[in-house]
């Protein structure tokens, strides 16, 4: 139960983070369509890092399971 709440909470954070990354990447791509490939790479890395932080939360929830 608490594990689920914890996982949910970490997902909220990751959702906001990845959403912001995606939105900013969209803006950047709209501004500089020629840099799309580069922006995408950086975006995916940043998203993976944010996701990693969220998964830390999930792991901590798992530890309490």
């Amino acid at each position: 139960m608490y594990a689920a709440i914890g996982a949910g909470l970490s997902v909220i954070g990751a959702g906001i983070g990845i959403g912001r990354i995606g939105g900013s990447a969209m803006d950047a791509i709209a501004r500089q369509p020629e840099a799309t490939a580069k922006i995408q790479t950086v975006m995916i890395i940043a998203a993976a890092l944010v996701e990693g932080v969220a998964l830390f939360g999930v792991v901590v929830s798992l530890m309490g399971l």
Partner: protein
Amino acid sequence: MNNPLVTPELGLIVWTTLVFCILFFLLAKFAWKPILKAVKDREASIEDALGLAEQTRKEMVALSANNEALLNKAREERDEMLKDARTVKDKMINDAKAIANTEAERIISSAKEAIQNEKLAAITDLKNQVATLSIEIAEKILKQELATAEKQRSLIDSAVGEINLN
């Protein structure tokens, strides 16, 4: 920490370390080294080929420029030659014309001379013939005049009569 998921097992750690080390050394020796070398070699060869192509392109540009210059030179030379030929031709024609003129004049003058000579010869001949004719006529007349002895006498008489004996 009671969840088995987040407690690493020693056995798995030992095995993973061992297997990964073996994998790393074998792949590094037998796979990555030749693959990376081949990729690098190929890239180098491609770079070389590209460099060569660039160099060839430059050479080609230089060569075509050279060709252009050569062509221009040839064209100029041809023009020059044509010009020369034209002058030579003109000169030849003029010379020929001059020679022809002088020849013609010479022929004409010689013809005129010949005509003159012929004319003179003809006149001389005519004169001779007239003279011959005159002599013949005179002979005939004389013969008739002096056909008889009386006539001869009368003539001698008249001639003796005319002589003045001084």
